[in-house]
Protein backbone atom coordinates (compact mmCIF):
# COMPACT_ATOMS: atom_id res chain seq x y z
CA UNK A 1 0.00 0.00 0.00
CA UNK A 2 1.28 3.47 -0.81
CA UNK A 3 2.01 5.77 2.10
CA UNK A 4 -0.13 8.84 1.70
CA UNK A 5 0.47 12.46 2.48
CA UNK A 6 -1.47 13.48 5.57
CA UNK A 7 -4.38 15.83 4.85
CA UNK A 8 -3.75 19.45 5.74
CA UNK A 9 -6.92 20.99 4.39
CA UNK A 10 -10.02 18.86 3.99
CA UNK A 11 -11.69 21.54 1.84
CA UNK A 12 -9.17 21.17 -0.98
CA UNK A 13 -7.67 17.73 -0.30
CA UNK A 14 -10.28 15.54 1.43
CA UNK A 15 -9.56 11.89 2.09
CA UNK A 16 -12.15 9.71 3.77
CA UNK A 17 -9.44 7.26 4.86
CA UNK A 18 -7.46 9.92 6.74
CA UNK A 19 -7.08 8.77 10.36
CA UNK A 20 -8.80 11.89 11.75
CA UNK A 21 -11.81 11.39 9.47
CA UNK A 22 -11.99 7.70 10.37
CA UNK A 23 -11.87 8.44 14.10
CA UNK A 24 -14.27 11.40 14.23
CA UNK A 25 -15.51 12.87 10.94
CA UNK A 26 -18.31 15.03 12.37
CA UNK A 27 -16.30 18.15 13.28
CA UNK A 28 -14.60 17.99 9.87
CA UNK A 29 -17.95 17.83 8.11
CA UNK A 30 -19.41 20.62 10.25
CA UNK A 31 -16.55 22.95 9.37
CA UNK A 32 -16.84 22.13 5.68
CA UNK A 33 -20.61 22.64 5.74
CA UNK A 34 -20.21 26.07 7.32
CA UNK A 35 -17.32 27.28 5.24
CA UNK A 36 -17.17 25.42 1.97
CA UNK A 37 -19.70 23.56 1.55
CA UNK A 38 -18.47 21.33 -1.33
CA UNK A 39 -14.97 19.98 -0.69
CA UNK A 40 -12.65 18.86 -3.45
CA UNK A 41 -9.72 16.46 -3.71
CA UNK A 42 -7.20 15.45 -6.35
CA UNK A 43 -6.81 12.07 -4.64
CA UNK A 44 -8.41 8.97 -6.17
CA UNK A 45 -8.28 10.62 -9.57
CA UNK A 46 -10.29 13.64 -8.45
CA UNK A 47 -13.56 14.08 -6.60
CA UNK A 48 -16.03 16.21 -4.68
CA UNK A 49 -17.65 15.98 -1.28
CA UNK A 50 -20.89 17.98 -0.81
CA UNK A 51 -21.86 18.33 2.84
CA UNK A 52 -25.42 19.66 3.03
CA UNK A 53 -28.62 17.61 3.08
CA UNK A 54 -29.97 19.59 0.14
CA UNK A 55 -26.99 18.70 -2.03
CA UNK A 56 -26.88 15.05 -1.03
CA UNK A 57 -30.59 14.74 -1.74
CA UNK A 58 -30.35 16.42 -5.12
CA UNK A 59 -27.46 14.18 -6.24
CA UNK A 60 -29.19 11.01 -5.04
CA UNK A 61 -32.25 12.02 -7.06
CA UNK A 62 -30.34 13.08 -10.18
CA UNK A 63 -29.47 9.93 -12.09
CA UNK A 64 -29.02 11.91 -15.27
CA UNK A 65 -25.89 13.79 -14.20
CA UNK A 66 -24.57 11.23 -11.72
CA UNK A 67 -24.06 7.56 -12.50
CA UNK A 68 -23.95 4.70 -10.00
CA UNK A 69 -21.55 2.73 -12.20
CA UNK A 70 -19.04 2.84 -9.31
CA UNK A 71 -20.23 3.46 -5.76
CA UNK A 72 -17.03 2.81 -3.83
CA UNK A 73 -14.24 5.36 -4.22
CA UNK A 74 -10.96 3.64 -5.10
CA UNK A 75 -7.88 4.49 -7.14
CA UNK A 76 -9.37 2.57 -10.02
CA UNK A 77 -12.34 4.00 -11.87
CA UNK A 78 -12.01 1.49 -14.70
CA UNK A 79 -11.04 -1.94 -13.35
CA UNK A 80 -10.11 -4.58 -15.94
CA UNK A 81 -13.10 -6.88 -15.37
CA UNK A 82 -15.41 -3.92 -15.35
CA UNK A 83 -19.06 -4.30 -16.43
CA UNK A 84 -20.42 -1.00 -17.78
CA UNK A 85 -23.67 0.78 -16.97
CA UNK A 86 -26.61 0.31 -17.09
CA UNK A 87 -26.02 -2.99 -15.24
CA UNK A 88 -22.66 -2.42 -13.61
CA UNK A 89 -20.82 -5.02 -11.55
CA UNK A 90 -23.33 -5.36 -8.71
CA UNK A 91 -26.92 -4.71 -9.80
CA UNK A 92 -28.99 -2.86 -8.69
CA UNK A 93 -26.56 -0.70 -6.71
CA UNK A 94 -24.27 -0.15 -9.72
CA UNK A 95 -27.16 0.16 -12.18
CA UNK A 96 -28.69 3.27 -13.68
CA UNK A 97 -32.22 3.67 -15.06
CA UNK A 98 -33.95 2.06 -16.77
CA UNK A 99 -32.17 -1.25 -16.04
CA UNK A 100 -31.98 -0.41 -12.34
CA UNK A 101 -35.73 -0.82 -11.79
CA UNK A 102 -35.68 -4.32 -13.27
CA UNK A 103 -32.76 -5.51 -11.17
CA UNK A 104 -34.18 -3.95 -8.03
CA UNK A 105 -37.69 -5.31 -8.47
CA UNK A 106 -36.29 -8.84 -8.56
CA UNK A 107 -34.98 -8.65 -5.01
CA UNK A 108 -37.46 -6.29 -3.33
CA UNK A 109 -40.05 -8.97 -2.42
CA UNK A 110 -37.53 -11.03 -0.43
CA UNK A 111 -36.70 -7.95 1.68
CA UNK A 112 -40.25 -6.63 2.13
CA UNK A 113 -41.54 -6.47 5.72
CA UNK A 114 -43.49 -9.74 5.54
CA UNK A 115 -40.63 -12.16 4.81
CA UNK A 116 -38.17 -10.11 6.85
CA UNK A 117 -40.29 -10.00 10.00
CA UNK A 118 -40.57 -13.78 9.86
CA UNK A 119 -36.80 -13.89 10.57
CA UNK A 120 -37.16 -12.29 14.01
CA UNK A 121 -37.11 -15.50 16.09
CA UNK A 122 -33.96 -16.72 14.36
CA UNK A 123 -32.19 -13.40 14.76
CA UNK A 124 -33.13 -13.39 18.43
CA UNK A 125 -31.74 -16.86 19.02
CA UNK A 126 -28.56 -15.99 17.10
CA UNK A 127 -28.10 -13.00 19.43
CA UNK A 128 -28.73 -15.14 22.51
CA UNK A 129 -26.23 -17.74 21.36
CA UNK A 130 -23.48 -15.13 21.21
CA UNK A 131 -24.56 -13.53 24.49
CA UNK A 132 -24.41 -16.94 26.15
CA UNK A 133 -20.80 -17.21 25.01
CA UNK A 134 -20.06 -13.83 26.67
CA UNK A 135 -21.81 -14.64 29.95
CA UNK A 136 -19.78 -14.64 33.14
CA UNK A 137 -17.04 -12.36 31.79
CA UNK A 138 -16.49 -8.90 33.25
CA UNK A 139 -14.68 -7.68 30.11
CA UNK A 140 -16.19 -8.46 26.74
CA UNK A 141 -15.95 -7.04 23.26
CA UNK A 142 -19.30 -5.84 21.92
CA UNK A 143 -17.83 -5.67 18.42
CA UNK A 144 -15.66 -8.73 17.83
CA UNK A 145 -17.66 -10.76 20.35
CA UNK A 146 -21.17 -9.75 19.29
CA UNK A 147 -22.02 -7.16 16.62
CA UNK A 148 -19.91 -8.77 13.91
CA UNK A 149 -21.67 -12.13 14.25
CA UNK A 150 -25.29 -11.08 13.80
CA UNK A 151 -25.59 -9.97 10.12
CA UNK A 152 -23.46 -12.69 8.44
CA UNK A 153 -25.52 -15.49 9.95
CA UNK A 154 -28.74 -13.98 8.59
CA UNK A 155 -27.31 -13.28 5.13
CA UNK A 156 -25.72 -16.74 4.82
CA UNK A 157 -29.09 -18.27 5.47
CA UNK A 158 -30.94 -16.05 2.99
CA UNK A 159 -28.40 -16.76 0.24
CA UNK A 160 -28.13 -20.42 1.16
CA UNK A 161 -24.37 -20.27 1.79
CA UNK A 162 -22.68 -22.39 4.49
CA UNK A 163 -22.89 -20.63 7.87
CA UNK A 164 -19.33 -21.72 8.67
CA UNK A 165 -18.05 -19.51 5.84
CA UNK A 166 -18.61 -16.38 7.95
CA UNK A 167 -14.90 -15.64 8.11
CA UNK A 168 -14.69 -15.73 4.33
CA UNK A 169 -17.60 -13.27 4.10
CA UNK A 170 -15.87 -10.85 6.44
CA UNK A 171 -12.65 -11.10 4.41
CA UNK A 172 -14.54 -10.35 1.21
CA UNK A 173 -16.23 -7.36 2.79
CA UNK A 174 -12.91 -6.12 4.16
CA UNK A 175 -11.34 -6.34 0.71
CA UNK A 176 -14.16 -4.60 -1.13
CA UNK A 177 -14.91 -1.87 1.38
CA UNK A 178 -11.87 -1.24 3.56
CA UNK A 179 -8.85 -1.78 1.31
CA UNK A 180 -9.71 1.05 -1.05
CA UNK A 181 -6.18 2.45 -1.06
CA UNK A 182 -4.58 -0.46 -2.88
CA UNK A 183 -2.90 0.25 -6.19
CA UNK A 184 -5.08 -0.79 -9.15
CA UNK A 185 -2.88 -3.88 -9.89
CA UNK A 186 -3.15 -5.12 -6.31
CA UNK A 187 -6.93 -4.83 -6.32
CA UNK A 188 -7.18 -6.78 -9.55
CA UNK A 189 -5.14 -9.68 -8.17
CA UNK A 190 -6.97 -9.92 -4.92
CA UNK A 191 -10.41 -10.27 -6.38
CA UNK A 192 -9.63 -13.67 -7.95
CA UNK A 193 -10.32 -15.80 -4.85
CA UNK A 194 -13.39 -13.69 -4.13
CA UNK A 195 -14.85 -14.37 -7.55
CA UNK A 196 -13.98 -18.06 -7.26
CA UNK A 197 -15.84 -18.36 -4.00
CA UNK A 198 -19.04 -17.01 -5.54
CA UNK A 199 -18.56 -19.05 -8.67
CA UNK A 200 -18.36 -22.24 -6.63
CA UNK A 201 -21.49 -21.34 -4.66
CA UNK A 202 -23.39 -20.68 -7.88
CA UNK A 203 -22.26 -23.99 -9.40
CA UNK A 204 -23.38 -25.75 -6.26
CA UNK A 205 -26.81 -24.10 -6.47
CA UNK A 206 -27.12 -24.97 -10.16
CA UNK A 207 -26.38 -28.61 -9.32
CA UNK A 208 -28.55 -28.63 -6.17
CA UNK A 209 -31.29 -26.01 -6.43
CA UNK A 210 -32.94 -25.12 -3.13
CA UNK A 211 -35.31 -22.62 -1.56
CA UNK A 212 -33.05 -19.59 -1.14
CA UNK A 213 -32.24 -16.29 -2.81
CA UNK A 214 -29.38 -17.72 -4.88
CA UNK A 215 -31.54 -20.41 -6.51
CA UNK A 216 -34.30 -17.86 -6.98
CA UNK A 217 -31.96 -15.52 -8.88
CA UNK A 218 -30.65 -18.39 -11.00
CA UNK A 219 -34.18 -19.39 -12.02
CA UNK A 220 -36.09 -16.15 -12.26
CA UNK A 221 -36.93 -14.94 -15.75
CA UNK A 222 -37.14 -11.41 -17.08
CA UNK A 223 -38.85 -11.08 -20.47
CA UNK A 224 -38.74 -14.86 -20.87
CA UNK A 225 -35.00 -15.11 -20.26
CA UNK A 226 -32.95 -16.15 -17.24
CA UNK A 227 -30.49 -13.62 -15.84
CA UNK A 228 -26.93 -13.48 -17.10
CA UNK A 229 -24.60 -15.31 -14.74
CA UNK A 230 -22.68 -12.09 -14.09
CA UNK A 231 -25.93 -10.43 -13.04
CA UNK A 232 -26.61 -13.20 -10.51
CA UNK A 233 -23.03 -13.04 -9.22
CA UNK A 234 -23.13 -9.27 -8.98
CA UNK A 235 -26.38 -9.21 -7.02
CA UNK A 236 -25.20 -11.91 -4.62
CA UNK A 237 -21.91 -10.10 -4.00
CA UNK A 238 -23.92 -6.94 -3.39
CA UNK A 239 -26.29 -8.53 -0.90
CA UNK A 240 -23.42 -10.07 1.00
CA UNK A 241 -21.31 -6.92 1.07
CA UNK A 242 -24.20 -4.51 1.65
CA UNK A 243 -25.80 -6.73 4.27
CA UNK A 244 -22.86 -7.43 6.53
CA UNK A 245 -20.64 -4.68 7.80
CA UNK A 246 -23.30 -2.01 7.37
CA UNK A 247 -25.57 -3.52 10.01
CA UNK A 248 -22.61 -4.72 12.06
CA UNK A 249 -21.41 -1.09 12.12
CA UNK A 250 -24.84 0.15 13.14
CA UNK A 251 -25.14 -2.36 16.00
CA UNK A 252 -21.58 -1.62 17.12
CA UNK A 253 -22.04 2.15 17.07
CA UNK A 254 -25.23 1.90 19.11
CA UNK A 255 -23.57 -0.26 21.76
CA UNK A 256 -20.53 2.04 21.80
CA UNK A 257 -22.90 4.96 22.41
CA UNK A 258 -24.81 3.20 25.19
CA UNK A 259 -21.54 2.20 26.88
CA UNK A 260 -20.74 5.91 27.23
CA UNK A 261 -24.20 7.31 27.96
CA UNK A 262 -25.55 5.61 31.07
CA UNK A 263 -28.70 7.74 31.10
CA UNK A 264 -29.66 6.66 27.58
CA UNK A 265 -28.94 3.04 28.52
CA UNK A 266 -31.03 3.31 31.68
CA UNK A 267 -33.95 4.81 29.76
CA UNK A 268 -33.90 2.06 27.15
CA UNK A 269 -33.80 -0.59 29.86
CA UNK A 270 -36.70 0.91 31.79
CA UNK A 271 -38.74 2.09 28.77
CA UNK A 272 -38.38 -0.64 26.14
CA UNK A 273 -41.18 0.98 24.10
CA UNK A 274 -38.67 3.73 23.21
CA UNK A 275 -36.68 1.29 21.11
CA UNK A 276 -38.18 2.17 17.68
CA UNK A 277 -37.41 5.88 18.18
CA UNK A 278 -33.96 5.05 19.54
CA UNK A 279 -33.21 2.86 16.52
CA UNK A 280 -34.00 5.73 14.14
CA UNK A 281 -31.84 8.12 16.15
CA UNK A 282 -28.94 5.64 16.20
CA UNK A 283 -29.33 5.36 12.42
CA UNK A 284 -29.38 9.14 11.99
CA UNK A 285 -26.59 9.96 14.38
CA UNK A 286 -24.19 7.14 13.49
CA UNK A 287 -25.31 6.48 9.92
CA UNK A 288 -22.67 4.02 8.75
CA UNK A 289 -22.97 4.23 4.97
CA UNK A 290 -21.50 6.82 2.61
CA UNK A 291 -21.99 6.12 -1.08
CA UNK A 292 -20.39 7.48 -4.24
CA UNK A 293 -21.30 8.45 -7.77
CA UNK A 294 -19.33 9.35 -10.88
CA UNK A 295 -20.11 12.52 -12.81
CA UNK A 296 -21.61 11.55 -16.18
CA UNK A 297 -20.53 14.60 -18.15
CA UNK A 298 -19.03 17.97 -17.29
CA UNK A 299 -21.61 19.63 -15.07
CA UNK A 300 -21.79 22.69 -12.85
CA UNK A 301 -23.21 21.74 -9.47
CA UNK A 302 -23.87 24.53 -6.93
CA UNK A 303 -21.13 26.53 -8.67
CA UNK A 304 -18.61 23.67 -8.73
CA UNK A 305 -17.14 22.80 -12.13
CA UNK A 306 -17.51 19.03 -12.00
CA UNK A 307 -15.78 17.10 -14.75
CA UNK A 308 -16.80 13.87 -16.45
CA UNK A 309 -15.71 10.87 -14.34
CA UNK A 310 -14.98 12.90 -11.20
CA UNK A 311 -15.98 11.07 -8.03
CA UNK A 312 -18.76 12.44 -5.85
CA UNK A 313 -18.73 11.16 -2.29
CA UNK A 314 -22.40 10.95 -1.33
CA UNK A 315 -22.45 11.60 2.40
CA UNK A 316 -25.76 10.43 3.82
CA UNK A 317 -24.15 10.53 7.30
CA UNK A 318 -23.16 14.17 6.71
CA UNK A 319 -26.68 15.00 5.49
CA UNK A 320 -27.99 13.55 8.75
CA UNK A 321 -26.07 16.17 10.74
CA UNK A 322 -27.23 19.18 8.73
CA UNK A 323 -28.72 21.76 11.14
CA UNK A 324 -30.93 23.10 8.33
CA UNK A 325 -32.93 19.86 8.50
CA UNK A 326 -32.45 18.56 12.05
CA UNK A 327 -32.95 20.50 15.24
CA UNK A 328 -29.87 20.20 17.43
CA UNK A 329 -28.35 18.05 14.71
CA UNK A 330 -25.19 17.22 16.65
CA UNK A 331 -27.09 16.13 19.76
CA UNK A 332 -28.22 12.53 20.21
CA UNK A 333 -31.86 12.62 21.36
CA UNK A 334 -33.02 9.12 22.13
CA UNK A 335 -36.73 9.95 21.78
CA UNK A 336 -36.46 12.28 18.79
CA UNK A 337 -39.92 12.12 17.22
CA UNK A 338 -39.38 13.96 13.96
CA UNK A 339 -36.43 12.31 12.31
CA UNK A 340 -36.38 12.39 8.55
CA UNK A 341 -32.93 10.84 8.31
CA UNK A 342 -31.28 9.55 5.16
CA UNK A 343 -29.24 6.67 6.61
CA UNK A 344 -30.68 4.27 4.03
CA UNK A 345 -30.16 6.65 1.14
CA UNK A 346 -32.65 8.69 -0.84
CA UNK A 347 -34.37 8.10 -4.16
CA UNK A 348 -34.36 5.03 -6.36
CA UNK A 349 -31.44 3.27 -4.64
CA UNK A 350 -33.07 3.31 -1.17
CA UNK A 351 -31.49 0.46 0.77
CA UNK A 352 -33.24 -2.76 -0.20
CA UNK A 353 -32.20 -4.23 3.15
CA UNK A 354 -33.57 -1.43 5.34
CA UNK A 355 -36.35 -3.52 6.91
CA UNK A 356 -33.89 -6.29 7.70
CA UNK A 357 -31.26 -3.89 9.01
CA UNK A 358 -33.76 -2.22 11.36
CA UNK A 359 -34.94 -5.58 12.62
CA UNK A 360 -31.39 -6.81 13.28
CA UNK A 361 -30.43 -3.57 14.99
CA UNK A 362 -33.51 -3.56 17.22
CA UNK A 363 -33.30 -7.22 18.21
CA UNK A 364 -29.53 -7.13 18.76
CA UNK A 365 -29.92 -4.13 21.09
CA UNK A 366 -32.95 -5.52 22.93
CA UNK A 367 -31.17 -8.79 23.65
CA UNK A 368 -27.92 -7.12 24.66
CA UNK A 369 -29.44 -4.75 27.20
CA UNK A 370 -31.69 -7.42 28.69
CA UNK A 371 -28.60 -9.55 29.28
CA UNK A 372 -26.32 -6.67 30.34
CA UNK A 373 -28.50 -3.83 31.73
CA UNK A 374 -25.48 -1.79 32.79
CA UNK A 375 -22.11 -1.65 31.11
CA UNK A 376 -19.47 0.92 30.33
CA UNK A 377 -16.69 1.42 27.83
CA UNK A 378 -13.55 -0.19 29.24
CA UNK A 379 -11.14 1.95 27.26
CA UNK A 380 -12.01 4.32 24.43
CA UNK A 381 -8.41 4.35 23.19
CA UNK A 382 -8.76 0.67 22.22
CA UNK A 383 -11.84 1.28 20.08
CA UNK A 384 -10.98 0.90 16.40
CA UNK A 385 -13.10 2.23 13.52
CA UNK A 386 -13.46 0.71 10.08
CA UNK A 387 -12.06 3.08 7.47
CA UNK A 388 -13.71 3.81 4.17
CA UNK A 389 -17.32 4.32 3.22
CA UNK A 390 -18.87 2.02 5.78
CA UNK A 391 -17.90 3.41 9.13
CA UNK A 392 -18.39 1.71 12.45
CA UNK A 393 -16.47 0.59 15.53
CA UNK A 394 -14.77 -2.79 15.24
CA UNK A 395 -13.18 -3.36 18.66
CA UNK A 396 -15.52 -2.18 21.43
CA UNK A 397 -14.06 -3.27 24.78
CA UNK A 398 -16.79 -3.19 27.38
CA UNK A 399 -16.90 -3.71 31.11
CA UNK A 400 -20.09 -5.41 32.25
CA UNK A 401 -21.43 -3.95 35.50
CA UNK A 402 -24.58 -6.04 35.82
Amino acid sequence: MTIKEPVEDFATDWDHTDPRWVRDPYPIWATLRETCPVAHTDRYGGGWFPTTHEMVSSIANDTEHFTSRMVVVTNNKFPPNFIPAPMGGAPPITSDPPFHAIARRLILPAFAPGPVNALEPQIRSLCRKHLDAMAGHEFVDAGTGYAQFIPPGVIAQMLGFPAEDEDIFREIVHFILDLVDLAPEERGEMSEPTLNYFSNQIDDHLANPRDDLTSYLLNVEVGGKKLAREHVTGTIVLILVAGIDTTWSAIGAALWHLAQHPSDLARLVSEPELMPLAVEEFLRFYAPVTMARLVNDDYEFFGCPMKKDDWVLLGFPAANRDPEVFERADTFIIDREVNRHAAFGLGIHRCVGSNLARLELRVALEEFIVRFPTFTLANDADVTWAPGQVRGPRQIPIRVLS
Partner: protein
Amino acid sequence: MKVRIDPDICQGQGRCFSIAPGLFGFDELGNGVVIGDGTLQADTLALAQLAQANCPEHAIFIEE
Protein backbone atom coordinates in the same frame (compact mmCIF):
# COMPACT_ATOMS: atom_id res chain seq x y z
CA MET B 1 -58.98 15.46 5.60
CA LYS B 2 -57.41 12.62 3.66
CA VAL B 3 -53.94 11.16 3.53
CA ARG B 4 -52.35 9.72 0.41
CA ILE B 5 -48.98 8.39 -0.67
CA ASP B 6 -47.65 9.35 -4.07
CA PRO B 7 -46.46 6.00 -5.47
CA ASP B 8 -44.06 7.72 -7.86
CA ILE B 9 -42.23 9.34 -4.96
CA CYS B 10 -42.42 6.55 -2.37
CA GLN B 11 -39.27 4.41 -2.29
CA GLY B 12 -40.30 2.04 0.49
CA GLN B 13 -38.32 3.68 3.28
CA GLY B 14 -40.85 2.11 5.62
CA ARG B 15 -41.26 4.91 8.12
CA CYS B 16 -45.03 5.45 7.69
CA PHE B 17 -46.16 1.90 8.38
CA SER B 18 -43.90 1.65 11.43
CA ILE B 19 -45.09 4.95 12.92
CA ALA B 20 -48.79 4.56 12.07
CA PRO B 21 -49.55 0.91 11.31
CA GLY B 22 -53.29 1.58 11.50
CA LEU B 23 -53.11 4.11 8.69
CA PHE B 24 -50.42 2.67 6.44
CA GLY B 25 -49.47 -0.77 5.22
CA PHE B 26 -47.11 -2.05 2.53
CA ASP B 27 -47.34 -3.86 -0.78
CA GLU B 28 -45.35 -6.93 -1.85
CA LEU B 29 -42.39 -4.76 -2.82
CA GLY B 30 -42.35 -3.04 0.55
CA ASN B 31 -43.70 0.29 -0.68
CA GLY B 32 -46.07 2.17 1.59
CA VAL B 33 -49.82 2.10 0.92
CA VAL B 34 -52.69 3.88 2.64
CA ILE B 35 -55.13 1.54 4.36
CA GLY B 36 -58.73 2.17 3.24
CA ASP B 37 -59.62 5.49 1.64
CA GLY B 38 -57.28 7.56 3.80
CA THR B 39 -59.96 9.59 5.58
CA LEU B 40 -58.54 11.03 8.80
CA GLN B 41 -60.32 11.65 12.10
CA ALA B 42 -59.20 14.13 14.70
CA ASP B 43 -57.14 11.47 16.47
CA THR B 44 -55.54 9.96 13.38
CA LEU B 45 -54.65 13.30 11.81
CA ALA B 46 -51.79 13.82 14.24
CA LEU B 47 -50.40 10.36 13.52
CA ALA B 48 -50.61 10.94 9.78
CA GLN B 49 -48.78 14.23 10.24
CA LEU B 50 -46.07 12.52 12.26
CA ALA B 51 -45.60 9.93 9.51
CA GLN B 52 -45.49 12.74 6.96
CA ALA B 53 -42.84 14.59 8.96
CA ASN B 54 -40.69 11.45 9.03
CA CYS B 55 -40.95 10.45 5.39
CA PRO B 56 -37.46 10.91 3.93
CA GLU B 57 -38.86 11.10 0.39
CA HIS B 58 -41.68 13.61 1.13
CA ALA B 59 -44.12 11.15 -0.45
CA ILE B 60 -47.03 11.64 1.99
CA PHE B 61 -49.71 14.25 1.32
CA ILE B 62 -52.52 15.37 3.60
CA GLU B 63 -55.31 17.19 1.80
CA GLU B 64 -58.82 18.55 2.30
